[in-house]
């Protein structure tokens, strides 16, 4: 690896700093008392406490999964603090009341809220260490009947909706981390688009982990009623800590007849340093239920951060003619590990799914695509198209593909394409001979490689993602 390339790849994590805000942290450890404490802190109704306790019971009986292609020391779930809330004044009426320190954090991240709100017209539900601090544009959205608020508020203000949908797409017993999340989730976002309403703006949430050793257990639920549509953006960054942090979020989407949900993620959590020390463990369960006829669920993700990423945003295509999409770019560098992909479960007739996955591995990292395309006996005329491309950067990185295809209906049509390529010194020399430096060259090659996915992102996100990828990868070629 040439010296300039080495320098580029070893740039420190740009968002690495700790915000100095007093936090209210639960003692480490998990038991029914912890769960009762979280529930009490959040003044939750009895049914939700029951939901948590049942999930906890289920979790106790489950074992940590071991099939994924990642390696990490055993997680001590009793060494984690399960609740951290910023200490703050009572409810804020406007952004002016938000802790200036917190606002500065967002400035450092390049996410000035005011600007974001004004320029992009995006309603940002800010999550800061598990508790919503400000919800914007809420009233404007309320005018058309859209509910966009923190999960805590939703539990208080719209208990009937939460009770109706929470855990219906991902039941607490679904998997180890989903069970854990269901037991201890602290906050998250809730979004409800009523019948026939097209959400007039992209909805966006910024997540951020800020307390050392505090697990983050976000819970997101999006419901689109008949004929409704929404585009939801999720972006993450986190400060640099030396010890690993566990993040086990659960995201559930429900699309009824003719409804359309587009969920986009840019994930840039702390990935550990160049020696693989520290970084976030990002073990996320995301699933959408395309419940109604002609409904559509589309996942787009750009995964660049975390020491370990373990997530499979999936679609259950229950309604006839429903559509599931998964567009993914996963980038790993240094000692990062990613095992990510999707599941497309075809149940309804004439259901269609598209999978486009681009994995880029640099440094000593390992990047796995794992996907399941399952066509049930009922899914007459189902179709799937999958494309999995891997790009290797440097000599020590690994790319792996684990595509599973299970078909129980002979009328279905499944296509799978895969490729592996490499950014080589020869390509960079070609660029250099035309006056283009390595940094620009890598960014151009990577953006070309990821084009099909970036096209799916909302404009401002696409710009961010492009910059992020260049930042993560430049100079790792050699």
């Amino acid at each position: 690896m040439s010296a300039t390339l080495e320098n580029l790849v070893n740039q420190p994590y740009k968002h690495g700093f700790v915000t100095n805000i007093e936090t209210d942290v639960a003692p480490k450890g998990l038991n029914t008392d912890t769960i009762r404490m979280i529930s009490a802190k959040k003044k939750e109704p009895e049914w939700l406490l029951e939901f948590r306790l049942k999930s906890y019971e289920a979790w106790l009986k489950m074992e940590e999964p071991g099939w994924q292609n990642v390696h990490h020391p055993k997680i001590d779930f009793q060494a984690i603090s399960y609740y951290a809330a910023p200490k703050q004044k009572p409810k804020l009426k406007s952004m002016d009341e938000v802790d200036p320190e917190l606002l500065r954090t967002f400035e450092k991240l390049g996410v000035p809220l005011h600007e974001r709100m004004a320029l992009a017209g995006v309603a940002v539900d800010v999550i800061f260490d598990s508790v919503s601090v400000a919800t914007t544009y809420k009233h404007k959205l309320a005018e058309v009947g859209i509910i966009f608020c923190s999960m805590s508020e939703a539990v208080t203000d719209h208990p009937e909706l939460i009770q109706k949908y929470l855990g219906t797409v991902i039941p607490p017993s679904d998997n180890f981390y989903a069970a854990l999340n269901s037991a201890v989730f602290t906050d998250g976002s809730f979004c409800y688009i009523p019948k026939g309403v097209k959400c007039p703006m992209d909805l966006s949430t910024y997540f951020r982990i800020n307390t050392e050793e505090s697990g983050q257990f976000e819970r997101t639920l999006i419901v689109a009623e008949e004929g409704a549509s929404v585009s939801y953006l999720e972006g993450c960054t986190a400060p640099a800590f030396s010890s690993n942090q566990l993040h086990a979020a659960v995201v559930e989407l429900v699309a009824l007849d003719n409804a359309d949900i587009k969920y986009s993620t840019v994930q840039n959590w702390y990935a550990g340093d160049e020696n693989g020390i520290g970084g976030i463990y990002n073990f996320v369960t995301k699933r959408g239920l395309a419940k109604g006829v002609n409904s559509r669920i589309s996942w787009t993700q750009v995964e660049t951060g975390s020491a370990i990423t373990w997530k499979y945003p999936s679609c259950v295509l229950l309604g006839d003619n429903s559509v599931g999409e998964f567009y993914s770019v996963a980038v790993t560098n240094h000692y990062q590990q990613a095992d990510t992909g999707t599941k497309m479960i075809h149940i309804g007739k004439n259901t269609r799914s598209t999978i486009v996955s681009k994995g880029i591995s640099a440094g000593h990292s390992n990047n796995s695509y794992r996907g399941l395309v399952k066509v049930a006996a009922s899914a007459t005329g189902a179709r799937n198209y999958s494309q999995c491309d891997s790009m290797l950067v440097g000599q020590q990185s690994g790319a792996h593909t684990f595509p599973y295809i299970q078909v129980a209906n002979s009328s279905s049509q499944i296509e799978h394409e895969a490729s592996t390529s490499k950014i080589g010194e020869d390509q960079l020399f070609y660029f250099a001979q035309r006056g283009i430096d390595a940094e620009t060259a890598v960014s151009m090659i990577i953006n070309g490689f990821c084009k099909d996915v970036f096209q799916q992102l909302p404009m401002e996100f696409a710009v961010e993602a492009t910059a992020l990828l260049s930042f993560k990868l430049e100079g790792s070629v050699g």
Partner: protein
Amino acid sequence: MILKNSKILLEVCDLRATVNGTEILKGLNLTVRSGEIHAIMGPNGSGKSTFSKILAGHSAYEITGGTVLLEGKNLLDLAPEERARAGIFLAFQYPIEIPGVVNSQFLRLTYNTVQTHRGHEELDPLEFDDFVREKMKLLEMNPDFLERSVNEGFSGGEKKRNEILQMAILDPRLAILDETDSGLDIDALRIVANGVNQLANENNATILVTHYQRLLNYIVPDYVHVMEAGRIIKTGGKELALELETRGYDWVGIENDAAARATA
């Protein structure tokens, strides 16, 4: 064309280079003045292609001795991209494919990068489109080329034309064409040669690295150099190429040995 009082563009003095410890260039000397076209010929393994890559700054080679000046400046101090910006252009023998990168974007980026370095204005995509389409006519290229990935799935001839198109866009001081004739059918050869001839002027110079005399029927050199074992062992006019074709490379070696004995 050989011009009176023309400036020295490139001056290579006793250049020595190794790859993985093996010496490839063993004291190469060459002077190129503006306006001139030089052909470097020689058998396989004589170091011709190595020499062109070294001029462009390929990192696989280690320079162990000698100097290379481009318009009086030490070329060896410059990174490959800086050499390109300073006016060195290498038309590759095997242009590499870059999947996913659209040719028009690549061409505009390289044009704007070099132009900025020379203190000129950049072109926006629309202006560049007009500019590049004009240049493409020179090489009888289909505009479809612009929308394809760089060199991806191009035939051998298309790749070579794409190289000369880049040369036309970048307007280098010194163009080095490494075996540009290889893999070209006679029509493509004519088109490429025609492009190179039209781009040659009194302010630039061209080095043609070639194995065969064939290309020199279309691009007439001012000087022909014969390279063997990492050095230029004979220099002559265009007629030298024809002589080589009839008598073979061995002849130069024998003649040189005889000359060496005669002077001894």
